């Protein structure tokens, strides 16, 4: 007897992702035959809005493109403007930017750990990691004034200098997180249940990964060593020591282990940054922002965010406002074409699990 094909609408709100996105599943039994992504629940026309604002007014908009990880957006937009304009950034500002980016990466990984284990029913982990993420948000609050959205990195440097005694506080949090990592290992990464659940699930074909546009931890989980921080060093990443971990397999487990190793690397980078922080200016002043014309031109810059290559393509026509700003998020590829592909043949119970491991973030798809 042929099994009947049923349609299931998963979403727009479900535990797999931060944001709203629907996946239409055609299933027989509990195996997925075909998956189709439906987006449009979070479209706020950011790119259109930016065309009607001055360059500096774009900053409160771009950080909203990704809720769990707003800093790569700010850094990218700053850097793309600097590249078009040819503006120099002081060394100290570059170090502070790396500090912010790495803290943001740690915060994102903590949130991801919670999501990943939450989607397999391990609810202790989110309680711990979301709580620990708050220590990083506290640091952000002291540094920038904002907990989630910072609007701290801007063209020419950063908005203000690091406060007195901030370095020690950061190091204290890093020590705590490092100690805490053992607990995470016991509960999630070395957990036999997680291994059994994640091994062989959501496999990305290694030979096709580059062609399919896979970036970030999912690509390194296929055994391909590619990291924007190494390939096209930005800010001061070429002066810092860190390794890029890779795992074979291309499944959820490999991606999780890559992120687990990167967590340690990020802690090490933060320590190096605090140790080597140079003195001097933190801001190369821009002219009056209300009368600030960026010279005509275009540029594409990219950052390694916690979920992969994050790029900004901006075009200036010499007026007060941008002609075009295009944000390229990793989720645009991971969350639509790749997800539809690797969900084929998966189990319904694994959909949220796979989406989480790919770092799907709908606001980035719709912008």
């Amino acid at each position, binding site marked *: 007897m042929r099994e009947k094909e049923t349609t299931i609408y998963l979403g727009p709100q479900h535990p797999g992702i931060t944001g709203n996105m629907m996946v239409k599943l055609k299933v027989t039994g509990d195996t997925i035959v075909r998956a189709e992504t439906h*987006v*449009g629940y979070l*479209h706020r*026309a950011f*790119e*259109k*809005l930016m*065309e*009607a*604002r*001055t360059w500096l*007014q774009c900053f409160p908009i771009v950080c909203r493109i990704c809720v769990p990880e707003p800093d790569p957006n700010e850094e990218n937009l700053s850097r793309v403007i600097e*590249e078009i304009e040819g503006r120099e950034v002081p060394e100290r500002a570059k170090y502070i930017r790396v500090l912010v980016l790495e803290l943001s990466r740690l915060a994102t990984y903590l949130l991801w750990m919670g999501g990943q284990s939450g989607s397999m029913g391990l609810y202790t982990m989110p309680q711990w990691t979301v709580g620990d993420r708050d220590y990083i948000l506290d640091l952000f609050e002291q540094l920038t004034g904002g907990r989630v959205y910072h609007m701290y990195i801007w063209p020419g440097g950063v908005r203000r200098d690091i406060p007195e005694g901030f370095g020690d506080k950061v190091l204290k949090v890093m020590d705590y997180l490092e100690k805490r990592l053992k607990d995470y290992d016991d509960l999630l990464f070395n957990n036999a249940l997680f291994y059994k659940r994640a091994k062989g699930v959501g496999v990305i074909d290694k030979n096709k990964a*580059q*062609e*399919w*546009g896979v*970036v970030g931890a999912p690509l390194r989980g296929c055994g*391909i060593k*590619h990291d924007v921080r190494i*390939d*096209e060093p930005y800010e001061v990443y070429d002066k810092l020591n860190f390794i890029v971990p890779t795992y074979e397999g291309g499944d959820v487990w490999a991606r999780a282990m890559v992120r687990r190793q990167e967590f340690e690397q990020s802690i090490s980078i933060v320590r190096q940054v605090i140790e080597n922080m140079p003195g001097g200016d933190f801001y190369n002043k821009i002219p009056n922002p*209300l009368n600030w014309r960026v010279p005509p031109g*275009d*540029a*594409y810059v*990219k950052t390694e965010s916690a979920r992969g*290559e994050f*790029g900004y*393509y901006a*075009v200036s026509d010499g007026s*007060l406002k941008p*002609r*075009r700003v*295009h944000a*390229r998020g990793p989720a*645009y*590829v991971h969350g*639509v*074409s*790749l997800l539809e*592909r690797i969900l084929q043949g998966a189990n319904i119970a694994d959909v949220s699990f796979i989406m989480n491991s790919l770092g799907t973030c709908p606001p980035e798809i*719709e912008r």
Partner: protein
Amino acid sequence: MEVKLQVENEILDKIKHTFHSAEVSIPRKQRVEVKLRNDLIHPFLAYLKDTLGFKHLSHISTVDWLEEKEIELVYIVMNYDNLVEVIAKIRLDREKPEIPTLREFWPQVETYEREIHEMYGVNFLGHGNLTDFILEDWEGIPPMRRDFDTVKYAKETYFNRPGREDAQDVRTTITKKSGEEIPELAKVYSVRHLE
């Protein structure tokens, strides 16, 4: 400097040798910019992908040049071996923007083309699935085009909720409620003032 840009120059020479009409430049390290004739984009990207090893499509972007009556498509592709990114640009007629699809090259192109079709009205011939992506049942000019007036659309489509019919500035409401004065500077330098 010359030594450092060796890889970029090699790619530039190869492209120039194969596509004589292409304008090639090197804006900076790890970037090669190519301006092409419309009909050459397919053979060009096929050449980059299959012969020169540019496997990774970073993204496809669109810029509307309203004054010049053109729509620009920007393809950014990357090579994982020599880590150079090629930015290929073509310009389409704004009145009737049409170009054959690139779907067979990279699977993620389908999503990009659907979005560009929806937001800029570019018709990708042979795509086969140019259905709604982000918007639903959109009529009228595509919303990301420069001549689409966002404020006018919002005024026509949405209405103020009861109690806010006068559509006053939110700062005026705050002033009324708290008695706090708005600084003169903030009044002068509002977004509206710039327009």
